[in-house]
């Protein structure tokens, strides 16, 4: 039996050797870097302790996923369930369940202890260290248990996980005795609660595995009929009426992928609005905005992969054999992406509007001084311009990403990731910059990293113009004309041109200095060209992906 347990341990460790190595090495490495070099370089504007803590969290996350010990048992269910081949090993069930969790807990706990005692400057009591380790252990065991429980609906997993987290939080609060009003027993109760959670996690793992091994259907389905009534989930009984194949494909793209974008953004914005109702700080709202932005950027991935949760962009035979032209296949994706982005955008802008309605306008700051100097008409046109430009940016980012990802090549994938990283850095940089910048809009804009990058390298923008013109010319040539004729592209071109004209008029109405105005106009031209580019790129990508 010892031999078999050793083999089991070997499998767990060997299967995840990469993640394990990265997780374990990252902290000492960063620590070494910080000690020797980086402290001088970044110590001025970044708190070293926080960086170190963030790195630690990152590696714990790494280690956690390393030991999460779920396996892909079938093609349909990615990352679900206990690896079935292990269930066939001649070992008692409790060993099968305890070995991986215990291993994970021990590694993660000793890692945290190592970090606290060796690498960080924190001085923590043993009780505190014990608490942190047992929280980690309980979390690991419970999340394993939930992961291993097959066939349980997603919503139920979330509910279970949330209640466990709530239990953990209460226990920890009791131990640390935050309000210092409760008796000495609270530490005891808290510790007991933690241990209870830890043990129940193990027990639940064991039960789950036992049921799986005996192939009982382990289901205690909650009847969440009220959720169905809310129509959050696709209604199964009513069949749509399709006028043709293209409309059916629209339905397919929407129901299989695109609905996720507005759903996610909608859920985040509801949380945001509720948070603002309870008087949350502006920080939280800003974080929500960043999350939403991330979702927008991620939506390219959503739409380009062919199944939710899949990482692959190769077009599935089922999709590829639809009797539709390449252009129609691409356009059904793009149109549904557009629908998703627009609906999500409405949610997105509803958050600040509603929170301002609820909390009221922020108190006078440096930036609002600048606002007072501008006339109402200018304010409105700035607002409308901002709305249009943000939508255009979101669309351009997600649609261009989607269009090149549809090509399913490694190069395009790397290009896409780099592009998004760049965008993210620009965005973050801009936000950080704007936050600390007093003064009027123009000086802030001019000083922002995004502006500087573009104005110092105008050829970056010229690249887009040249690319777009070249692509447009390409569509006049026979091999491309086969993919999409210009008449098919006309509608989309007209929409983008209308957006461009409106925003140009708005920019000119702002009466900015000539140079700034010209620069803004040029940027807008480029932005709307970027909005149109996906309609040229996506059909080519689909054609390449479909006919290999």
């Amino acid at each position, binding site marked *: 039996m010892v031999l078999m347990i050793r083999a089991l341990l070997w499998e767990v460790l060997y299967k995840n050797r990469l993640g394990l190595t990265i997780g374990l090495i990252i902290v000492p490495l960063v620590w070494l870097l910080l000690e020797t070099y980086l402290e001088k370089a970044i110590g001025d504007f970044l708190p070293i302790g926080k960086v170190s803590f963030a790195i630690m969290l990152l590696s714990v996350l790494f280690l956690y996923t390393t030991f999460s010990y779920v396996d892909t048992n079938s093609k*349909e269910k990615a990352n679900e369930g206990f690896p079935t081949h292990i269930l066939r090993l001649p070992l008692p069930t409790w060993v099968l369940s305890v070995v991986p969790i215990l291993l994970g807990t021990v590694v993660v706990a000793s890692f945290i202890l190592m970090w606290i005692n060796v690498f960080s400057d924190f001085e923590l009591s043993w009780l505190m260290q014990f608490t942190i380790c047992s929280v980690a252990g309980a979390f690991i065991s419970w999340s394993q248990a939930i992961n291993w429980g097959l066939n349980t609906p997603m919503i139920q997993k979330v509910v279970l996980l949330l209640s466990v987290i709530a239990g953990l939080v209460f226990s920890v609060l009791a131990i640390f005795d935050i309000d210092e009003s409760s008796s000495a027993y609270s530490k005891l109760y808290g510790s007991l609660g933690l241990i209870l959670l830890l043990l129940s996690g193990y027990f639940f793992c064991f039960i789950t595995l036992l049921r799986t091994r005996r192939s009982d259907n382990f289901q205690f389905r909650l009847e969440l009929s009220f959720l169905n009534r809310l129509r959050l989930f*696709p209604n*199964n*009984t009513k*069949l*749509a009426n*399709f*006028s*043709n*194949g293209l*409309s*059916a494909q629209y*339905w*397919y793209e929407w*129901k*299989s992928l695109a609905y996720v974008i507005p759903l996610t953004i909608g859920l985040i914005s509801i949380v945001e609005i509720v948070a603002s109702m309870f008087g949350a700080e502006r920080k939280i709202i800003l974080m929500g905005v960043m999350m939403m932005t991330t979702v927008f950027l991620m939506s390219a991935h959503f739409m380009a992969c062919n199944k939710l949760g899949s990482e692959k962009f190769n077009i*599935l*035979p*089922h999709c*590829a*054999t*639809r*009797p*539709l*032209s*390449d252009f*129609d296949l691409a356009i059904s994706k793009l149109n549904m992406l557009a629908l998703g982005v627009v609906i999500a955008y409405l949610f997105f802008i509803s958050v600040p509007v509603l929170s301002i309605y609820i909390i009221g306008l922020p108190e006078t700051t440096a930036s609002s001084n600048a606002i007072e100097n501008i006339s109402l008409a200018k304010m409105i046109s700035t607002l409308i311009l901002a709305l249009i430009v943000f939508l255009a940016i979101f669309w351009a980012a997600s649609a261009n990403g989607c269009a090149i990802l549809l090509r399913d090549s490694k190069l395009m994938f790397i290009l896409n990731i780099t592009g998004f990283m760049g965008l993210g850095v620009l965005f973050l940089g801009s936000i950080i910059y704007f936050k600390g910048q007093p003064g009027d809009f123009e000086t802030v804009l001019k000083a922002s990293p995004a502006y500087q990058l573009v104005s110092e390298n105008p050829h970056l923008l010229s690249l887009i113009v040249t690319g777009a013109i070249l692509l447009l010319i390409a569509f006049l040539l026979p091999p491309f004309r*086969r993919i999409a004729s210009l008449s098919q592209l006309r509608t989309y071109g007209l929409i983008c041109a209308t957006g461009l004209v409106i925003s140009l008029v708005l920019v000119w109405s702002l009466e900015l200095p000539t140079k700034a105005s010209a620069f803004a106009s040029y940027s807008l031209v480029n932005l709307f060209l970027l909005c149109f580019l996906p309609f040229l790129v996506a059909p080519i990508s689909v054609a390449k992906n*479909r*006919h*290999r």
Partner: protein
Amino acid sequence: MQSADNLIINIQGLSREFDKHKALDNIDLQVESGQVIGIVGENGAGKTTLIKHLLGLYRAEQGSVSVFGLDPVNNPAEVLGKIGYLSEQPDLPGWMTIAQYMNYMSAFYTGWDDSYASNLIKATSLDINKKIKSLSKGQQARVGLCAAQAHKPELLLLDEPSSGLDPLVRKEILSAAIRTVVDDGRSVVFSSHFLDEVERICDHLVMFSKGKIVLSAPMSEVLEHHKILIIGSDEFKRVGNSNIEKLPGLLRVKEKRGEYLVSLNISDDLLLSATDSLSLKIIDKRLMTLDEIFVCYCPEQQAVNGE
């Protein structure tokens, strides 16, 4: 050659390489309407690659592919609209219910017959409000088969549809193929490892090995022309190995317990004149089964059997 209008599939000189490995090597194949073509070959022989070319999922690197007289890469909408397709792994969208799936599929095909489709689904006795991902492999294949034939396609492409399925579902697949040809001369391309099924339903056999077509002939001719002659070892030595090897249509010679088994692909008349000219005495002569023919043409299999 046949007039081009009559040809459902016309493949000429098709070659395809994956990482310098020849998946298809100078393939020529013509299919007339009303034919059932059986494609057999060892794993990785190029059957699926060929079928993917017919669907336009692969671009012809060398040579040409035309289906219904059109290039499936350039005219996917026209070509795919007349094809019914079922593969070994029917990758149906799991999140749809059966009813939604059939409704979705019906939108694409002009020839979709709603009452026929609902009859086909009823025959499977599956609950149409069930999600596809909750179905077993066989049940998914049944749903896929219903969708593949409900629009009465002019060409039914079955890419190893029977693999891993129970005999009942396999029978359903066969009867779908038969129904397709029986109804006003539509065509079927059927690739399979089940040689008895291929023998049953196909009227033309195409055998692949390592990306090449090693045999392409009407099924009846294949079965009648492939023979094994048994020759005594004295007689074999008298005639001489070199003379035996000159026999027309010789596939292989194998010694077994003092007798020689000579496999040939030859018509009766030619065989008679050849044996007469050598005045070859034959102990026994019998027709080869499709399994034996398959083993003869696929060299890897032969090596394993020979040991």
